[in-house]
């Protein structure tokens, strides 16, 4: 008598699927083909990113980790990668994204933004050449002044770059603090609006309109990309800003209170100056 059919060769995908099922994952990647396709797409695949986020939150609560992978990060590839790196680091995971892999993903993202069809080569230098020629092409089609001159006018040597990195880190810490403070203040103000009786019926509307924006960490790349227009500091209380942020409230007048006063003043002044 022959024994039962040997089980199919265990595959990595199969193992992963079994684990996901056991963990309670209910997303769209419970099917091997879908999972493989998503894995090929990597972080540029929406489903794959979602899976990472879900796994991250499960692991975080089980292992009580500090780091997390947030869905907000998904919109900003670089931040997302940083989050995953940080997460893996905290788990002391030996398999991290290599520098080149991250670079490839970023260059691919550039392709997408610039509308260049997906690259056939994985040679990064060749890919960057393609990016450069596309950018030159686009620039030739806009006004000369459209993209201003760079703010940073020198080439940085590695020592200067390192120094700037350190300064940037210190500034990021400082501004993180201030940012948290301002976000908190904004939150409590919006909340206080939500407590009024008239606003209680509009909580959904408020929630829809008030969504804190995701914050991008400032890096050296931002410095290199900065243009001269950044050196113009626009005061928050400048005339233009005030005009644009004025709302109906600024023009409210308590008419009735001052009506009699108005008449009084006019009468008084008429007595003093009959030309009025």
């Amino acid at each position, binding site marked *: 008598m022959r024994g039962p059919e040997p089980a199919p060769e265990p595959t990595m995908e199969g193992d992963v699927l079994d684990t996901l099922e056991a963990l309670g994952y209910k997303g769209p990647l419970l099917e091997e083909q879908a999972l493989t396709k998503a894995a090929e797409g990597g972080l540029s695949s929406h489903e794959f990113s979602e899976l990472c986020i879900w796994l991250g939150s499960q692991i975080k609560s089980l292992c009580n980790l500090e780091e997390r992978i947030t869905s907000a990060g998904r919109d900003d590839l670089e931040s997302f990668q940083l989050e995953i790196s940080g997460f893996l680091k905290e788990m002391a995971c030996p398999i991290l994204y290599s520098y080149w892999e991250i670079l490839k993903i970023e260059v691919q993202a550039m392709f997408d933004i610039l509308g260049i069809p997906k690259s056939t080569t994985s040679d990064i230098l060749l890919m960057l050449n393609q990016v450069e020629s596309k950018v030159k092409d686009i620039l030739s089609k806009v006004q000369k002044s459209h993209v201003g001159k760079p703010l940073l006018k020198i080439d940085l040597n590695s020592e200067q770059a390192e120094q700037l990195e350190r300064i940037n880190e210190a500034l990021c810490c400082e501004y993180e603090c201030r940012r948290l403070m301002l976000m*908190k*203040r904004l939150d*409590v*103000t919006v909340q*206080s*609006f939500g*407590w*009024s009786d008239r606003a209680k019926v509009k909580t959904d509307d408020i929630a829809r309109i008030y969504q804190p924006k995701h914050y991008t960490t400032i890096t050296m790349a931002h410095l290199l990309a900065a243009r001269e227009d950044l050196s113009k500091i626009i005061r*928050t*209380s400048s005339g233009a800003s*005030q005009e644009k*942020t*004025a709302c109906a*409230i*600024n*023009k*409210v*007048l*308590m008419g009735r*209170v*001052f009506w009699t*006063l*108005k008449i009084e*003043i*006019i009468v*008084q002044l008429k007595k003093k100056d009959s030309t009025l």
Partner: protein
Amino acid sequence: MSRNYNDELQFLEKINKNSWRIKKGFVPNMQVEGVFYVNDALEKLMFEELRNACRGGGVGGFLPAMKQIGNVAALPGIVHRSIGLPDVHSGYGFAIGNMAAFDMNDPEAVVSPGGVGFDINCGVRLLRTNLDESDVQPVKEQLAQAMFDHIPVGVGSKGVIPMNAKDLEEALEMGVDWSLREGYAWAEDKEHCEEYGRMLQADPNKVSPRAKKRGLPQVTHFGGGNLTDLDFAALIPDALVAMEKAMKRDKIIVNDRQLACARIASPEGQDYLKGMAAAGNYAWVNRSSMTFLTRQLDFFFYETFFFKLFYSKFWDTCAEHAGLLQRYTCALVVCRTCQPFGTCKDCIFSGLVQCLIPLLQAPESYKNVTDVVNTCHDAGISKKAIKLRPIAVIKG
């Protein structure tokens, strides 16, 4: 006073022409040293006060300011120094103009109502306008009269801005956020207020019903915008009793009963801070309401007489606490420096205003404000920035 005047002097050391050090031992149990800032005239006054006290002539149960600075230096958790700003003089427990900082991470550190003061968030607001003197001079009498008529003054008078008990609760909790929501403040006003016009730990339940009852009609007026005044003075015995119990329980020792305090982390300490924050919020609402009415008047005036000025923004709110008024005959704006605490600019500034406010309210204790400001400038505590010249005055 067991020591004679000369023995007391052994604990006092002149640092420079504007400052003196109070060494440990001047009073029992000092955790840190004291320092006080003077000019020649103020120095004379302070030492005279000490000499009189040594002879047995105290003033109305208050210790001399120097001793009070020392007693504050003996409070648990105090950081760096107990400081006496220029024109420091005797007060309740703390001298008026006596400043101290306490480390909130130190479980021993305390909070003392005497240190906070009874006039919680008593302050000044400076509004800026785009108008010239030539715009205002022709109508200054009418403008001043209108302000007097329409912005209530004096304790007990009714406010113009409608407010019920529920509004008061919300105002105590939300500070300028309430004013903003109700349309009395502009969003940009918050940026020019300390704490953005709202202390977040406020809890209206920690404010007594009696204080609320008194505060409710007074939400918009000059000279009565403190939720404290008489109420807190009457309530001090209550607070003292609660804190004295806490002091026995937590084994806190102070040199002066008026320095009653509680550990910051204790329920009494937390309750006090929450009530204090609510009182602070009330003051900001009060000042916002007055600003609102002032803006109404200004807009009203200039629409009537100067059509060309018809646009919505006349007044910016400059820094709170920025104006120092001397019987309304001259005002000086000073800007903060880092002395004498490295990072504690706000403490210094409110301490400075604190010691000057009594000048406004008690003309008999009139001192030359310019003197005090000059001393601060010389001592490096603040720098003179702008001198204001009033063209009309309304007394609150």
